[in-house]
């Protein structure tokens, strides 16, 4: 302790130091006294010696200080090097990996079903890209292979058409196309936005009739949400259309929500019956599923309708062949539908056509199916 640190003069320093020491001693004595009181009370209350029992028990629980063993005397990684034989696959698995291995091996547990589904989906996609491989017996079933075929075709068309409508309509299908719901979300995730610079005028027009299309300032991409998306106002949508298509742009197809919901499927299918098949019949042979391909080559937007029609037909429980037929016919109907759409510039017109004739649809389709069956036979 250096006296020079003190700012005060000589004789006072020693006194001050003495004072400091005195204060310190007092504090220490207080602490000792506190301890004594505590101990004395414990003695008198009888709990002072409570932590001591007889010598024998004391020895039992003594702290162990050997190498390779913890303080309780237990070996740490006793089970680490042990191997167990899996009852399922008869392999020797390390003990710490045994539980996860059993999960996968027996096909139980949360992750295994997820992985199995994913594997099935990717196998379906792969089987189309790897053409004639019949590795997966699952795909030998006609329905599934048909579904995989359609999905492959759709995937090619997907690259050109970044429309959320595809996945939107998929969500409404249930049952038969369970797989499509799994694989489709992959595509949906990619299409978070479209850059308007990469699209031609036709594509832009068709996009704008179905999507919000407002261009985000941050990403310069078009909004892919519906016409009524809450993030953007109608003013913004109008401005974007003017910007992209010029002042003479068609007005926003607005109003009926019916237009944009899944009931869109039904109007499409019905208009096929309403509009005579003279429009594109030379181009399309109804018995060929390739007819759908032909119809899709005509315009991009038709692909939208085509896919929906396909799925709708499957849902009505018609067999694969019949589905192809009606799908082919549906391609035609889609054309007619669009023709009316572009000329009258209103989904309202479509819906007005479709609604009254909703009930006619099943009977008409049955009639066409039976006729084409005759043709096939």
């Amino acid at each position, binding site marked *: 302790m250096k006296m020079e640190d003190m700012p005060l003069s000589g004789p006072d320093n020693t006194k001050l130091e003495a004072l400091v020491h005195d204060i310190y001693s007092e504090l220490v004595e207080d*602490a000792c006294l506190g*301890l004594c009181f505590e101990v004395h009370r414990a003695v008198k209350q009888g709990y002072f010696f409570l932590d001591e029992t007889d010598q024998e028990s004391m020895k039992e629980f003594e702290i162990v200080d050997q190498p390779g063993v913890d303080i309780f005397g237990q070996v740490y990684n006793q089970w680490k090097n042990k191997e167990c034989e899996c009852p399922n696959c008869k392999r020797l698995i390390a003990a710490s990996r045994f539980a996860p291995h059993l999960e996968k091996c027996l096909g139980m547990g949360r992750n295994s079903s997820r992985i199995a589904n994913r594997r099935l989906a990717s196998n379906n996609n792969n089987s189309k890209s790897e053409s004639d491989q019949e590795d997966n017996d699952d795909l030998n079933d006609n329905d599934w292979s048909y579904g995989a075929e359609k999905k492959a075709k759709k995937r090619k068309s997907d690259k050109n058409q970044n429309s959320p409508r595809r996945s939107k309509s998929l969500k409404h299908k249930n049952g038969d196309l369970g797989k499509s719901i799994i694989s489709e979300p992959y595509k949906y995730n990619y299409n978070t936005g479209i850059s308007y610079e990469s699209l031609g005028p036709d594509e832009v027009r068709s996009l704008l009739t179905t999507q919000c299309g407002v261009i985000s300032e941050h990403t310069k991409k078009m909004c892919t949400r519906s016409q009524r998306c809450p993030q953007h106002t109608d003013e913004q949508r109008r401005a974007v259309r003017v910007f992209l298509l010029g002042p003479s742009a068609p007005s926003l197809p607005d109003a009926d929500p019916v237009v944009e919901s899944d009931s869109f499927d039904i109007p499409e299918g019905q208009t096929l019956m309403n509009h005579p098949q003279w429009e594109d019949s030379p181009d399309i042979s109804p018995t060929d599923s390739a007819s759908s391909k032909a119809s899709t080559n005509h315009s991009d937007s038709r692909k939208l309708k085509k896919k929906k029609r396909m799925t709708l037909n499957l849902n009505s429980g018609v067999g694969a062949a019949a589905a192809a037929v009606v799908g082919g016919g549906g391609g035609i109907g889609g054309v007619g539908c669009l023709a009316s759409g572009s000329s009258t510039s209103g989904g309202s017109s479509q819906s007005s056509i479709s609604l009254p004739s909703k009930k006619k649809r099943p009977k008409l389709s049955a009639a066409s199916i039976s006729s084409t069956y005759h043709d096939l036979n």
Partner: protein
Amino acid sequence: MSKDSQMRAAINQKLIEMGERERLKELLRAKLVECGWKDQLKAHCKDVIREKGLEHVTVEDLVTEVTPKGRALVPDSVKKELLTRIRAFLAQHATL
């Protein structure tokens, strides 16, 4: 000398009034527990009690046995720190 004692009294009073004494006490207790001083002294107490017999132990006995040992057992680091703090307090608040 009375000035001295006056000064002492004044300083002590200030210590208590400003709550510094309590803080120093708590600090010392915590440090003593940390460094194991308390356990050492408790073990010593056990010996004393076993010596004197459980029934007849009095506070005075304990105090006379324990205090000198306690004072001696305080580790240097703890002592130094406390002295520093007391000195700092005096430097700040002592009026001479």
